[in-house]
């Protein structure tokens, strides 16, 4: 309970429970997964000898490598889409909306769905995309198509469409934060120095919001990589990402292989985050 003492004993007592919880419920299980991924045995055998061959087996199966590639590709596509849409929304909210009441209302409108179940939001997309779904009925009604478009449900496009509605806010939030931190005098100063609005955005505003953009991209990347429910609900059984693969393997009792996929998933996520963070460091306040 100290306000001034350095390294007081009570701090350790206060910090203990939470730290312990995370260690036991998160760190240890993760390490356990890594250990399981090295098992020779397929089923659950604690005494199993260890090998790295499982990883080799993963990369030897083109279908599995395909899944890895698909997952990463989906993440990249989502990063681009949410990046553009998210930035546009953030820019509009912070720069163009003057009245604080309207700003708050719009922001709440964007954020409130996050307080509801992601599963329900996923389910809600199904009637939208199906052959008899709302989008198709609307298209038929306005005469844009003669037959219902089958390509929405059970397709990558459908998964992407749904994921955009879920994850764009993750890209918007950090950008809103960094945009807000730019003093209003900066764009004005640039304009006084003969910079057109395009110049102002590209040379002043955007570079200063780059940290927010990157954080948003990282959040979207992590979420899309780990997403399995959307693929299952909207893709049916035609599409599998790494998460779906883990479930499949677990349910068929191939624990060590499920662990291999898990480790690969975690590693890819770590690599992606490391790469993205490099971008920020290099470009932070830098100039071309």
């Amino acid at each position, binding site marked *: *309970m100290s306000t001034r003492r350095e390294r007081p004993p009570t701090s350790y007592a206060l910090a203990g429970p939470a730290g312990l919880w995370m260690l036991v*419920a998160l760190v240890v299980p993760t390490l356990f997964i890594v250990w399981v991924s090295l098992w020779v045995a397929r089923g659950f055998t604690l005494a199993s000898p260890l090998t790295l061959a499982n990883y080799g087996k993963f990369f030897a199966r083109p279908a599995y490598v395909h899944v890895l590639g698909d997952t990463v590709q989906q993440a990249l596509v989502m990063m681009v889409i949410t990046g553009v849409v998210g930035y546009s929304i953030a820019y509009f909210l912070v720069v*163009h909306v003057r009245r604080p009441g309207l700003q708050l209302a719009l922001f709440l409108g964007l954020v409130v769905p996050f307080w509801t179940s992601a599963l329900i939001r996923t389910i809600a997309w199904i009637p939208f995309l199906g052959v008899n779904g709302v989008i198709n009925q609307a298209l038929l009604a306005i005469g844009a198509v003669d037959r219902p478009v089958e390509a929405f449900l059970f397709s990558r496009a459908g998964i992407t469409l749904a994921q955009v509605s879920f994850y764009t806010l993750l890209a918007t939030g950090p950008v809103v934060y960094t945009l807000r931190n730019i003093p209003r005098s900066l764009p004005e100063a640039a304009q006084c120095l003969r910079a057109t609005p395009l110049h102002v955005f590209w040379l002043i505003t955007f570079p200063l919001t780059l940290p927010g953009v990157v954080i948003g991209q990282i959040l979207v990347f992590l979420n899309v990589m780990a997403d399995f*429910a959307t693929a299952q609900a909207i893709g049916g059984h035609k599409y599998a990402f790494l998460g779906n693969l883990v479930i499949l393997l677990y349910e068929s009792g191939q624990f060590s292989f499920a662990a291999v996929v898990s480790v690969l998933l975690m590693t890819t996520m770590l690599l992606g985050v490391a790469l993205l963070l490099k971008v920020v460091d290099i470009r932070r306040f830098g100039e071309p």
Partner: protein
Amino acid sequence: MIAWRTRQRLVKGALGAVTVLFLAYQWLPMLTMAVLSFTGPEGGTTFPMRGVSLHWYRELLRVQMVDDFKPPLARSVALALACSVTTAALALAAAQAMRARFLGSRIYFYLILLGVMAPGLLVGFGVALLARALGLGLAWYTSTFAVHIVWTLPFGFLTMLAVFNRFDRRLEEAALTLRATHWTTFWRITFPLVLPGVIGAALFGFTLSYDEFARSLFATGPEQTLPLVIYAQFDRQLQPTLYAIGAVTTAVSLGAVALFACLVRLFRRRTLTRARAVPAPNIP
């Protein structure tokens, strides 16, 4: 060449259109689902609606052998309440600890934050494996509870850190100069002022736990929580009962948010305006 003012207005219009369209894009599926949940007994899972009724809601209330939503709902609410209290308490303690720089506080910070970054599915997977190795059973009030806290704690922690950041230390110091002990200072000065943050952490604990399914997937025993039951429906045929439960559960989530917001307002007003009558000192 378009005049510059017109160009500015065009850009603003375009961005505004994107924002509004996106808002609609986000809300329409949910609103559609809510509307469709009121479809008549003959109604299918999409438009046109055949009649308007509460039929599917009544179906929810019926006791069924399979697909009974009521016990999972009860479990989810109970679990969410437990997570709410636990998250608030742990986050408060952890954030208070962070205020003094103790050894390893940087690593500690990242340790807590790991809970957000780790994919839910894998956390559940790991716990399931670990439980199996140790011969422990999985149950919604043990293993699921554990992984839920892993997920909710970082959010509560960040909330409390932000609140403590804005907190004026000098208030505590003033209390200490007035002969209060550390303990009294905390409960009489600090706690009431950071209460909105505590309530926020509790809110995170409730809603995040209530909706959680990725972590729970592997880590829950035979008695499932509501999101898991809903998830199991993915492979079955879609029925409007699912829309009904979807609407109900969304209402619960939003209701919780509204309730917590009201609590914050209430406490803030009470703390800041209520003055306790103090007897005047007897100075001769």
